[in-house]
């Protein structure tokens, strides 16, 4: 088994680079302590090792099957679900009076990171369920909450989110699933959903689907979408499964990776309509779903981080043990071969992996900490700023780890060489698992449109402004530190390049919105690089503080801190400068993809 993540890094990210301990002064967390957090994460790690990592390979080779009647998963899947539930994790960050433990978001996300690292396919069941819990909590009626929350929180049902249809994925405004009002105030749904994760299984007694559909006669486009609860079995008052609902599995899709999470085609209303219960108000469904999707998007970024981390742990371990060749300076053919890590080019690959894996984890935890502040910070101004910043960075928090996670996992294969291409090693599986992340929860291009078309101009540019200010604070802090002042300068230049590019693209969008948005994915990458650099600078600042503190360190700690600073340096020297090339393309309003014509292909 590949070791899961890195405990020292998690401790560093939570308590040195972020100030998780300061949450303890907030009334909501008065009962908690760092000791409780540590004990919780220890449990998360044991659950992940024992119940998730144990079948990661098996679940990949024995994917879920459908015999026409029911879906079969390897039995380890249910054991993992049960262990997650029994550990109290499904309800971990809900309120005490709902049966939760009021754990801070950032700690909860580390719990998920362990299970994601161990087995992303199986981890999908709790992952989506937590999103559904949050959604029902935020927008459900008192009765809906009373009926469905305990059901999911106690593990008797999982949750799913059903947005996509065979004909519409990115463009949800065009969905076709219809909801007809019934006499009893509920609705009957007719239509088909595609690629829905976890909607059939044999791990819990019911499935609570959150379904987007259009009520007959509602407006066209996104303003006519409503959200419904459509359980597989109607739920009796005591929570037990009742009558079978008219939502049926049309078939399973067969995936590249992430295999243990069933991927379903669902038919609604093959007979007289699937019973659905409206959540909140009619026609506001997409807005509700988006709230859950923002959390889910941070979650996807963290999932990508975990897979990248496992690839890094694997290739690092391999490179340290595989003797191959000698340095060019060694003239003696009888001298022992050196380990792969002795070759600078292998170290380059490992550095990139480390920059992506640890950088992605930190990006996700940083976003989770903002989510926390947005909801529980005591100072209203801090809440507001956290909210603005989080809104802005969410597209990158989802996309940067997804994109660079894939490259990191690709590097892992490269470092293993021939072994990397073989199914006997886990590098290729990790790559296949990872490849989903730039596609679901909004494909990469959709996040490009989100950041450029919406986020940077939203609220008169307030979000982008907060970003500029917050980055500037760390630049100033780094300027005062000898070993970081170069990086401060590099980031300052990149930040102003980003800002200039932003203004020129806003102007271009004003003239021709299609042309202005044509290169949005490149802009997303540019913003992602600046964000990643800022967060690496934050880690470097914390590492420098660690190195220079008077507290005693063992040698491993010193190496750890130096590794952080050196990885930041790698990212700044090798990957941040791409923003200059991007700026050239973007500022000139480059038209090459825009002008390309279908007939010319």
């Amino acid at each position, binding site marked *: 088994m590949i070791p899961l993540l890195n405990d020292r890094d998690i401790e560093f990210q939570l308590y040195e680079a972020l100030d998780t301990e300061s949450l303890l002064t907030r009334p909501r967390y008065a009962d908690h302590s760092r000791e409780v957090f540590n004990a919780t994460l220890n449990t998360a790690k044991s659950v992940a090792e024992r119940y998730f990592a144990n079948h990661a390979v098996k679940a990949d080779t024995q994917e879920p099957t459908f015999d026409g009647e029911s879906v079969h998963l390897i039995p380890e899947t249910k054991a993992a679900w049960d262990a997650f539930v029994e*550990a*109290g994790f499904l309800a971990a960050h809900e309120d005490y009076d709902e049966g939760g433990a009021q754990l801070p978001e950032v700690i909860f996300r580390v719990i998920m990171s362990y299970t994601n690292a161990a087995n992303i396919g199986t981890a999908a069941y709790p992952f989506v369920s937590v999103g559904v819990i949050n959604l029902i909590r935020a927008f459900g009626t008192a009765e809906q909450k009373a009926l469905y929350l305990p059901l999911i929180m106690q593990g008797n049902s999982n949750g799913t989110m059903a947005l996509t249809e065979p004909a519409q994925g990115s463009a949800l405004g065009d969905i076709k699933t219809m909801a007809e009002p019934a006499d009893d105030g509920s609705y009957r749904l007719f239509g088909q959903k595609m690629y829905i994760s976890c909607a059939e299984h044999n791990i819990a007694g019911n499935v609570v689907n959150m379904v987007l559909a259009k009520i007959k006669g509602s407006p066209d486009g996104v303003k006519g979408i409503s959200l419904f609860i459509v359980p597989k079995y109607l739920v009796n008052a005591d929570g037990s499964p009742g009558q079978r609902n008219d939502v049926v599995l049309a078939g399973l899709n067969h995936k590249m990776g992430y295999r243990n999470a069933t991927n379903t085609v669902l038919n609604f209303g093959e007979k007289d309509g699937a019973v659905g219960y409206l959540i909140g108000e009619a026609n506001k469904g997409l807005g509700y779903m988006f709230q859950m999707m923002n959390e889910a998007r941070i979650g996807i970024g963290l999932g990508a981080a975990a897979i990248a981390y496992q690839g890094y742990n694997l290739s690092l371990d391999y490179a340290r043990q595989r003797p191959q060749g000698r340095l060019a300076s060694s003239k003696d053919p009888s001298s022992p071969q050196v380990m792969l890590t002795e070759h600078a080019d292998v170290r380059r690959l490992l550095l990139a992996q480390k920059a992506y894996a640890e950088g992605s984890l930190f990006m996700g935890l940083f976003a989770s900490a903002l989510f926390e502040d947005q909801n529980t910070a005591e100072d209203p101004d801090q809440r507001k700023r956290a909210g603005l910043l989080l809104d802005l960075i969410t597209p990158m928090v989802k996309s940067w780890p997804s994109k660079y996670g894939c490259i990191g996992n690709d590097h892992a294969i490269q470092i293993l060489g021939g072994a990397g291409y073989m199914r006997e090693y886990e590098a290729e599986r990790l790559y296949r698992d990872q490849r989903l992340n730039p596609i679901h929860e909004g494909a990469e291009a959709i996040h490009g449109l989100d950041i450029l078309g919406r986020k940077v101009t939203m609220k008169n540019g307030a979000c982008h402004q907060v970003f500029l200010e917050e980055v500037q604070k760390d630049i100033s802090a780094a300027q005062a530190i000898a070993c970081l002042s170069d990086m401060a300068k590099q980031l300052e230049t990149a930040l102003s390049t980003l800002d200039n590019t932003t203004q020129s693209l806003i102007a271009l969008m004003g003239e021709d919105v299609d042309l202005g948005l044509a290169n949005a994915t490149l802009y997303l990458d540019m913003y992602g690089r600046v964000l990643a650099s800022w967060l690496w600078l934050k880690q470097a600042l914390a590492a420098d503080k660690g190195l220079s503190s008077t507290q005693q360190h063992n040698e491993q700690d010193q190496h750890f801190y130096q590794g952080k600073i050196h990885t930041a340096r790698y990212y700044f020297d090798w990957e941040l400068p791409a923003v200059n090339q991007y700026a050239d393309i973007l500022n000139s309003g480059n038209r090459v993809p825009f002008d390309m014509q279908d007939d010319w292909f």
Partner: protein
Amino acid sequence: MKILVAVKRVADYNVKVRAKSDQSGPDLTNVKMAINPFCEIAVEEAVRLKEKGVATEVIAVSIGPKVAQEQIRTALALGADRGILIETDVAMEPLAIAKCLKQICDKESPDMVLLGKQAIDGDNNQTGQMLGALTGYAQATFASEITFDGASASVIREVDGGLQTLELKLPAIVTTDLRLNEPRYASLPNIMKAKKKPIDVLTTEELGVDVTPRTKLLKAEPPAERKAGIKVEDVAQLVDKLKNEAKVIV
């Protein structure tokens, strides 16, 4: 029935412990600490006995620095009812630990004391036996199964070449082996509940135990690196090397 479980704070088994550069001992600065795995098995067994209705109270005891409270909390989160910390900053040897535990036995009169067969820091495998001698309780080490019948316990021990079953009168001391059980993890609700369970803190002075170390650590060094192997020509050469170089056969 009251069960006393001893839990020791040691470096987490995942940590690769290194010697300090001045050779004065293992370098434990900022190293992740945990319950000794054998102690965890002891806690698990005690909690299972409580769940079966055999035990009525489980007390977790640790002897060590103030931070050893963390390991007691872990035991409480796993299901122990209350904790006792005997706080000391002295590097405790098995004899000193056994003497402290003896004092706690006198105060608490447990029916059974469960300990790990050894702790992964010193690997001494002595504390349980010494406590047996000090208290005069019946003793069974290396347990892989414990069952109860009224006032006696039957313990299956793992010994060289097989299993041995002992019948013990209570109160008794049992030290745990790896196969006794698979410890559970502490669930989040139980971690939260553990915060509210009481831990008494005592000192070695209060217990009147002389904990002065009887042995002196001269130096700590990493084990010699393994040398690369060689290929032998034939069986005769192998036997010769085993006899004369490795000196593992005569």
